């Protein structure tokens, strides 16, 4: 086991606490850079979606994970970013300009949502953000002169410095990857700054933060604005990747998916956003794979246990019928969410930390290390 010896504050806020980090992340980055030459085009396309979801995940982590303000309205911010890009593109605005403009506009709208949210906590905030998202969805469908209504908008191919970047080219993937890496590094630095510390203080106890002199209102609005702006940037990439956007893409369902990203990944670390994004994006191809191959596999196992060929055929067709049931995906989604909340509250990254600690401390690992403390409900109404 490695013990880090910190002698001053600079040691504490290093981005890479020890050389192991440089090696691990260097290798990871190298693998990601050669990915387009190795993976199939389908997997590359999924990888781009992983990048976009991870950017939104990071944005949501800033707001929900680190400032403690729940939001079920991030699909609306994504939509505003995407529509800004599509609208400005019609007037031949160059990519860097509308990319930043989308971020700026979403940031301003995020701050405007943040103001009413100042006085709201808990469930009221969740419902206020849901209402905001539903209103935005309706505006997108009705404001036809700008958004083209329910018919949706076509997004032209991205052109960067005069060079066309098609949505399935490696360059587009590198662009998304670059935005993701910049977002993560920027967020890491933000969390090491006074602003980030104020966010965490507000999450842990608003009253304590206020009595330590943190301007709670200002930092909450800042958190909303930053989170929304990053989501808006992701929205631009999202619009280009899909090349067509319409209001029914940005529903409550999508907001819930974003929350699931950080919930499954883990809400206490930026790793969680990336792991959760991988999980959410890859679950679709995985379920399709199961649907196609599971009947054969199960029948094979049955045959290995000496079942007659008639029974094997029977089992195979039954499993196939079950796997192609309508709505099975929704049920699996639901079960996954419930299981994660019940048994893995720290998410995938928490599981990874547990496994790592198990091997570092072998054979002294104690199961109680990560145990949640039992708390008893006290009324939030009196808080």
């Amino acid at each position, binding site marked *: 086991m490695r013990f880090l010896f910190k002698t001053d504050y600079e040691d504490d806020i290093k981005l890479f606490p020890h050389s192991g980090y440089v090696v691990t992340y260097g290798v990871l980055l190298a693998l990601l850079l050669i990915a387009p030459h190795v993976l199939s085009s389908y997997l590359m396309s999924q990888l781009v979606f992983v990048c976009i979801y991870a950017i939104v995940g990071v944005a949501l982590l800033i707001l929900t994970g680190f400032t403690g303000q729940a939001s079920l309205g991030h699909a609306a911010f994504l939509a505003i970013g995407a529509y800004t890009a599509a609208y400005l593109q019609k007037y031949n605005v160059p990519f860097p300009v509308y990319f930043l403009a989308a971020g700026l506009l979403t940031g301003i709208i995020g701050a405007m949502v943040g103001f009413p949210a100042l006085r709201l906590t808990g*469930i009221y905030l969740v*419902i206020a953000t849901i209402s*905001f998202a539903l*209103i935005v969805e309706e505006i997108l*469908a009705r404001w036809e002169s700008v958004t083209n209504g329910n018919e949706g908008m076509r997004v032209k191919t991205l052109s960067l410095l005069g060079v066309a970047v098609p949505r399935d080219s490696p360059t587009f993937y590198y662009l998304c990857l670059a935005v993701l890496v910049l977002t993560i590094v920027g967020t890491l630095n933000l969390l090491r700054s006074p602003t980030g510390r104020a966010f965490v203080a507000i999450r842990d106890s608003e009253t304590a933060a206020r009595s330590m002199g943190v301007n709670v209102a200002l930092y909450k609005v800042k958190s909303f604005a930053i989170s929304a702006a990053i989501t808006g940037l992701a929205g631009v990439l999202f619009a280009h990747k899909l090349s067509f956007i319409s209001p029914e893409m940005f529903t409550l369902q999508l907001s819930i998916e974003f929350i699931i990203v950080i919930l499954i990944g883990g809400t206490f670390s930026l790793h969680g956003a990336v792991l959760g994004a991988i999980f959410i994006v890859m679950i679709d191809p995985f379920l399709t794979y199961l649907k196609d191959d599971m009947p054969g596999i199960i029948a094979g196992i049955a045959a290995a246990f000496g079942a007659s060929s008639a029974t094997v055929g029977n089992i195979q067709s039954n499993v196939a019928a079950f796997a192609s049931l309508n709505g099975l995906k929704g049920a699996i989604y639901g079960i996954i969410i419930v299981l994660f909340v019940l048994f893995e509250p720290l998410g995938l990254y928490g599981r990874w930390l547990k496994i790592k600690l198990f091997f570092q401390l072998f054979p002294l690992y104690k199961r109680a290390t990560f145990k949640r403390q039992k*708390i*008893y409900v*006290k009324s939030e*109404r*009196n808080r």
Partner: protein
Amino acid sequence: MLDFVQQLVSGVALGCVYGLIALGFVLVYKATEVVNFAQGDLMMLGGFFAFTFIGMMGLNYWIGFAGAVAAMALFGMLAERVVVRPILGYPQFSIIMATIGLGYFLRSIAGMIWGTDDLKIETPFSQGVLRMGSLVLAYDKLSVIAATMILCTLLWLFFNKTMLGTAMRASSENMLAAYYMGIPVKRVVSVVWAISAAVATCAGVLLAPITFIHSNVGLVLGLKAFPAAVLGGFGSIPGAVVGGVLIGVIESMAGFYLPEGWKDVAPYVVLLTVLLLKPEGLFGLHVRKKV
């Protein structure tokens, strides 16, 4: 003027449905400080149960109704035992996510079992209208209004006048203290979930002739019932019904007098305005926080 009254009455009837679903939210919230995002889906499931008993097995309407309520009460206890009890007392957000997951699960399971068609239950109130002068009121809408009033009164009496109701309020204020006073908190929470599932079933069955039953009805109406519960202050039983009626009337007036598109948005605009001016809802208690 007649149009106005007609819109008002249909708004009130619609609002009573929202109010009934919101009552379920409020019950669970009042007793456990948990917000149940699957409440609408419990309503949907209750409707399907009633359809199975009445439409498929051919039972008498009232027997089928009672059967569905009883079955759903058991189901509510089961859901509480499996999903909520292990995480009771953990941050509110994890419980919200767990109930969202439960909702997903119920919706797709219901879709698998009962299919995706709209189903209809024949009720004694399906046909017939009440005429008062030139005003025409359908019995099915009146039945919703009457049932809401009765349920609301009963639940209010239950919470404020009975031993068990007092125990529920106590365990929501401070669970540990309630344990110390000898209140069987776990059983109390179970009972609350049973009651709220039963109320949801009443909503589902009464709603069946008006909106039909399909697997997404819970999500659609649940999203409308939230503003209702919030307007009412989330902790007040009469507040939930008043909030529901307000939302229903606003929606039906906006659909009639305002341009197209406002109907679906107006409740949320009103909600945001109210939250901006009075964050604790219209009937919520304003209490200062102790540090």
